[in-house]
């Protein structure tokens, strides 16, 4: 079988072995948890509960009203303690609902599954996915209902199920693929029905051969094709994955719809199946807790809103010398400063280790490694210089907005320049200027 891939990219150390063979453990919900009302790409949800209200597991506590928004559900049963601003993993302080767990785990009685999910119409599927508050679980947390609504003039022919998990250390998606392959394949079929696509491709990286074999076996009585991809970062980046599997280039500034493709992460696909078949909203997810600084690395099924501290305690606690806590993978994850921060829908991992405090930053020696490794074909060192000298027009001409912030350039930079940091700064400046000009 031919192994598919994309040009450029890097090979960081994988370090997946610590949690590779560990089955998903269910973590008991904590006594108190805090659920932020913004856990996705877009506008925050409106709170539906107030202090003192009794809530069930799966009860909607925040309503997503805008187009790019998603509903939020309670992940335990109990009493609402407060709706107040709380630390958010992405660094802002966001309105959040704090709930005291009564320990009963009463499921909302009105939650209902469907007898034959495959007979649903696309609109019914989208409605259920929207009701369940599903967002992309790969990290970007894009509202899934939007992703299932291709515009009329852009028909979708292929559904790609992203099982790459190219970030080092993370194994949550891998474990899901091993333990719930049928649910994922059924979810993929639902995505296919919702988008009107013809074919399904499941893309799995070479270092997850076991998952690949299982899917090949299970997909026999299914229409899905299972493709093996080279282990390379960022193989799971949407545009690179589409190129690797189909040799189609998503136009600059465009969406996968533009080339007739929808990409869903395996975790999202399973969540879609759970929502459609069981009526279960997204109130828990699988994360990898790993890194040198974690005593007992694990793959854990956690309730959304569980504070980091409880998750870490469940995994044996932090080691003494830990100085870096990251939500997500080591390449694109966000550094955290507080253990009170809650797990959100987009949390794929919680990692901790001892990192060097700083590096001596040399001048750029124009070695070209950032160019060699950039999966988007950009010139990161040049973008960095444009941003440094506030030349935003040139930065835009050189494609700064095409950057996906995968970190391949900064990883490979021998001068240890904070390339991604500068590029992010430039992107933010350009976007805020645009907003100002619009207003």
């Amino acid at each position, binding site marked *: 079988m031919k192994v598919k891939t994309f040009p450029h990219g890097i090979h960081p150390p994988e370090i997946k072995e610590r949690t590779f063979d560990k089955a998903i453990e269910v973590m008991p919900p904590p006594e108190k948890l805090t659920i932020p009302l913004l856990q996705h790409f877009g506008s925050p949800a409106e709170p539906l509960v107030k202090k003192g209200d009794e809530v069930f597991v799966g009860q909607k506590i925040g309503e997503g009203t805008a187009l790019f928004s998603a509903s939020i559900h309670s992940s335990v049963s109990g009493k609402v303690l407060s709706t107040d601003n709380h630390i958010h993993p992405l660094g802002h302080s966001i309105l959040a609902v704090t709930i005291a767990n009564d320990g009963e785990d009463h499921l909302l009685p009105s939650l209902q599954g469907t007898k034959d999910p495959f007979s649903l119409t696309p609109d019914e599927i989208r409605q259920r996915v929207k009701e369940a508050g599903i967002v992309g679980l790969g990290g970007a947390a894009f509202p899934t209902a939007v992703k299932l609504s291709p515009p009329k003039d852009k028909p979708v022919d292929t559904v790609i199920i992203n099982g790459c998990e190219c970030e080092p250390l993370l194994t949550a998606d891998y474990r899901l693929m091993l333990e719930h392959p049928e649910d994922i394949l059924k979810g993929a079929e639902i995505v296919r029905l919702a988008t009107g696509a013809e074919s399904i491709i499941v893309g799995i990286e070479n270092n997850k051969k076991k998952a690949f074999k299982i899917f090949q076996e299970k997909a026999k009585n299914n229409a899905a094709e299972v493709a093996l991809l080279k282990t390379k970062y960022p193989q799971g980046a949407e545009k690179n994955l589409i190129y690797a599997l189909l040799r189609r280039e998503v*136009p600059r500034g465009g969406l996968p719809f*533009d080339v007739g493709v929808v990409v869903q992460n395996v975790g999202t696909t399973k969540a879609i199946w759970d929502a459609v078949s069981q009526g279960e909203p997204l109130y828990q997810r699988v994360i990898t807790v790993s890194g040198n600084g974690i005593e007992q690395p694990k793959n854990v099924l956690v309730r959304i809103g569980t504070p980091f501290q409880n998750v870490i305690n469940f995994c044996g606690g932090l080691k003494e010398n830990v100085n870096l806590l990251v939500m997500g993978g080591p390449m694109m994850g966000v*550094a955290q400063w507080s253990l009170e921060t809650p797990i959100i829908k987009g949390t794929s991992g919680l990692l901790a280790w001892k990192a060097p405090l700083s590096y001596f930053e*040399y001048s750029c*020696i124009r070695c070209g490694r950032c*160019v060699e490794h950039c999966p988007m074909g950009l010139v990161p060192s040049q973008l960095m210089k444009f941003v440094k000298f506030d030349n935003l027009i040139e930065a835009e001409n050189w*494609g700064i907005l095409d950057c996906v912030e995968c970190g391949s350039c900064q990883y490979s930079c021998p001068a240890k320049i904070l390339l991604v940091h500068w590029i992010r700064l430039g992107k933010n400046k350009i976007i805020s200027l645009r907003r100002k000009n619009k207003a």
Partner: protein
Amino acid sequence: MTNKTFILQSSPHFKDKDSVPKIMYAVIFSLMPAAFASIYFFRLKAVVMLFSCVVVSLATEAIFLWLRKKPFHSLLDGSSVITGLILAMTLPPSLSLELAVIGAAAAIAIGKQVFGGLGHNIFNPALVGRAFLQTSFPVAMTTWIPPVTAKINTATYATPLANLKFEEAVAQGTLTPLKDLFWGNIGGCLGEASAITLLIGALYLLFRRVIDWRIPVGIMVSLSAFTGVFWLISPEKYASPLFHILSGGLMIGAFFMATDMVTSPISPLGSWIYALGIGLIVGLIRLFGGFPEGVMYSILFMNAFVPLLNRYARPQILGERSKR
């Protein structure tokens, strides 16, 4: 809850182990076989020359860092050592020590520090030093002595390329054999003494992915194509492409000087244009120019184009080809 402090930094949180000093020391290491070969062929003269050029380069760098109030950290990154080493290897072994010292100081001062130090220079610093000497002391820079191992007792000795240019060596049948060019034992600059030792170092750099393979390949392809045409038309007058590749400063230039990261293009397409240009100009100078050798000037000439190449030969962005 335990109170713990965490560092906040932007992603990525992983970094490759390679660093600027590691790259520089790899280049120094790769120059060692050729340096030892030059010592074997020219004995004490080579030792003195290599040593003094490196010391003067470091000293000049230190003085400039002190004047510019910059951290001395960059003294240890190895880049000035490379400049000194490469300069020494491009000098005739008969050159007097004072001139070598002037060359090394000029290389760092004019070639590197006036632009702002490592990473900011346009031209290869070692070649700037050499060009400075070539224009200031043309006679001393073109006086050659035979290697000690040649056991010839003459004061002066022509390089294989000078022999080719001024003595009509092809017609006379006195062209230096390829075997000698490859293994050594010829007249010329210190680093030109033996092609094989340069090749060993270059293979190490290619294997470690320190240098861009496109540059040496591009230079050799275009030089071979250019000289090959003339050789095929009249082999009784022109030397073969292989002779051109193995003689003079082509090997050390293609592998160690044109590939200097700071002064070579950043994109693959740029590298190809740059390399093909160097090879073509070397061929032009050697066949039709006033000098027997043209590697130095052709690299400096193409260095000047690098900012332009970086601007216009940039890679294609994913999605640039398709329409929305």
